[in-house]
């Protein structure tokens, strides 16, 4: 159904100094996908899996600029001879970022959008939307404002749009990046329904645990070529050690090991008192009268969507004036203004917190002290950047860096600000194994230099890699708060399983 023969693609990229450069997306690829096959593409960032997807949905060569050689055909017809419109009737796409793939503000309109473009009959579209909503159990998502939905719900709407169009081929580019376990389970149900309808599915993904049972084939890519290919039977025998060797995420969460760390260092506690906060619409509110956290550890904040994780994080950072609560830390009582001064958050979208024209300036911007001279600041900034493996990029514009590098620049500014509490909002969304471990290492280093770290996360592998303490939120209250050790891992697993049951 889909044939690649000798396909090479190079992106034309304009560098900051105005020079043009070609970057390989795919090198000399020969591949074929049969009708009804479920293919998983994986591999580290920049391995070419996204390019692969773009070649199938026609965005290459019809949207992205570059040099394409070789032949790609859908149903025996070359994609060069097809307009993107023609391709779009055959191939449905789900993208990574739920924020930027919508054309409409209303969910029902968005579900109808692709079908409307194909000039389907409105009556028929409406009927299909109703059917799809029932079969996907998303009736309550109809006729809503997309901007009020969570990331997971947005991806469900995107899938529903594809259901309405009902193309033969469906491609997904890292659809789970911004999703929690509950949403991932929903996604995997939808994928399995599509599979049973006989759709051809190609999915590029880092997080593999939800695809193990669905995949007919898994392709591991590196530098634009296929370096490993596994059949359905082989996948079952792939152990955790094997996946680590391949540099990819685990296929089964059960097999993830926890290397128990020495006990938590310092004896004092961070004491949260009276953390109460409600938004106008009464959603995502929190109510935490008292909570003790051991000082000097990495605390993971877990919970369902809407349990108040983000609200809690915002309140820790002092971003909500109306929160009257305080944190007792080293005999100090931190109200919201003090917390603003003592806490630093690495946001999920780090693009929003980088302001200056070079990495070095970015870090220096955080040094508020007036006693330090400009040169001292520069020296200190470089010291921090060296530790974070950014010494090559002093002069680079932060926006010219990769996602992981930007995140480390933000971490560097956090360190430079000398604030003792650092909060991460889903730091591993969309990261491959290597980068996830890199973040985990950086976070462990933060603890070593005396910071307190809070992490909102849905990433089980990541929790086992670096967290010491867990806060489990539910409906805005603390359901559980415990140190992570061999005995308590099961509680997290239980939580993840419970998520599956909810769906």
């Amino acid at each position, binding site marked *: 159904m889909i044939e690649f023969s000798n396909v090479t693609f190079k992106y034309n990229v304009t560098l900051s100094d105005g020079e043009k450069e070609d970057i390989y997306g795919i090198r000399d690829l020969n591949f074929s996908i049969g009708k009804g096959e479920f293919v998983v593409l994986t591999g580290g960032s920049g391995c070419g899996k996204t390019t692969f997807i773009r070649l199938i949905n026609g965005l290459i060569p019809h949207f992205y600029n570059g040099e394409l050689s070789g032949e790609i055909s859908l149903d025996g017809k070359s994609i060069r001879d097809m307009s993107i419109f023609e391709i779009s009737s055959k191939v449905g796409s789900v993208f990574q970022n739920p924020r930027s793939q*919508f054309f409409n503000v209303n969910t029902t309109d968005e579900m109808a959008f692709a079908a409307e473009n194909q000039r389907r*009959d409105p009556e028929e579209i409406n009927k299909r939307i109703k059917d799809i909503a029932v079969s996907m159990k998303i009736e309550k998502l109809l006729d809503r404002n997309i901007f009020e939905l969570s990331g997971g719900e947005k991806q469900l709407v995107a899938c529903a*749009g594809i259901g309405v169009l009902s193309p033969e081929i469906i491609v997904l580019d890292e659809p789970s990046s911004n999703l929690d376990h509950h949403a991932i389970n929903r996604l995997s149900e939808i994928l399995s329904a599509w599979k049973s309808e006989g759709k051809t599915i190609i999915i590029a993904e880092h997080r593999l645990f939800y695809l193990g049972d669905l995949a007919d084939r898994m392709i591991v890519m590196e530098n634009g070529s296929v370096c490993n290919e596994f059949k359905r039977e082989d996948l079952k025998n792939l152990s955790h050690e094997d996946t680590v060797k391949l540099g990819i995420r685990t296929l089964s969460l059960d097999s993830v090991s926890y290397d128990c760390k020495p006990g938590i260092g310092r004896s004092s506690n961070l004491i949260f008192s009276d953390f109460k906060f409600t938004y106008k619409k009464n959603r995502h509110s929190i109510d935490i009268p008292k909570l003790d956290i051991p000082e000097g550890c990495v605390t993971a904040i877990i919970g369902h969507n809407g349990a108040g994780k983000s609200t809690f994080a915002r309140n820790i*950072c002092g971003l909500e004036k109306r929160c009257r609560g305080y944190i007792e830390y080293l005999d100090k009582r931190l109200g919201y203004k003090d917390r603003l001064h003592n806490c630093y958050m690495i946001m999920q979208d780090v693009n929003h917190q980088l302001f200056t024209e070079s990495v070095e300036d970015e870090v220096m911007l955080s040094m508020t002290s007036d006693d330090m001279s400009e040169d001292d600041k520069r020296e200190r900034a470089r010291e921090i950047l060296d530790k974070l493996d950014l010494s090559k990029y002093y002069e680079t514009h932060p926006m010219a860096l990769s996602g992981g590098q930007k995140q480390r620049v933000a971490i560097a500014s956090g360190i430079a600000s000398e604030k003792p509490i650092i909060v991460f909002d889903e730091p591993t969304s969309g990261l491959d194994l290597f980068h996830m471990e890199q973040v985990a290492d950086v976070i462990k280093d933060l603890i070593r230099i005396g910071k307190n770290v809070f992490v909102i996360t849905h990433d089980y592998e990541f929790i086992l890699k670096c967290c010491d303490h867990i806060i489990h939120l539910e409906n805005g209250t603390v359901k559980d708060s415990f140190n992570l050790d061999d005995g308590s891992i099961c509680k997290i697993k239980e939580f993840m399983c419970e998520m599956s049951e909810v769906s």
Partner: protein
Amino acid sequence: MEIGLQSNLSRDLFHLDPRTKLAILITVGIIMMSGKYTGVEYVLRLICVAVPFLLLISIRLFRSAFIYVLLMYSTVLCEGFIIPHTKGMINLMIMIICGVISRFGPGYLCGWYVVKSTSVSEFITAMERMHFPNIITIPMSVMFRYFPTLKEDYSSIHDAMKMREIGKKIKNPFTYIEYILVPVMMSTVRIANDLSAASLSKGLGVNRTRTHICKIGLRFIDYILIISMVVMLVTFYVF
């Protein structure tokens, strides 16, 4: 403050076609901007003042409707009765205040009604029915979709600035503007890119028409209203 149209609509008492709303907007605008305070035109003004009130009631914005009606009738009565009997500075002050409220108030409130009662899809569908080309309707749909994103981006940039205590450090207002606008603009460029890719892969094309699941159509009440608007305008220009 919400900018932009509604994403979805709750149950209204009666629902008008966007084209009817346009007719009302134009009529009320013209009459209120240039109507005189005597004879037939004064009567027309009084009718126009009542229009936004009824429209607001129809979409259950009762509080706005009542505040509006109190304000309007007191100014219109002022213009009719108090202004001719006062002199000097007081006269001028009252006139300026009344002038602004009575001339612009109904027009803006009609605009507010349009914003509150029209969904984006209705608006775009109506524009296509009125034969606006794709090169106008596609950018406008993108605008309405981009406003909320812009708001989200701004608020998280604002949070980041607060957290990094940037406001305190920067004295130069230009630098401050730069720090806010640059991340917003970076995100604008990214969104334009991602959204183009997504729309293309969903088959949106410049030279193709599309179907619409959104139903708009002129109903009995629309005809009645459009005819009465025309009658009012004719009366206005004839007399």
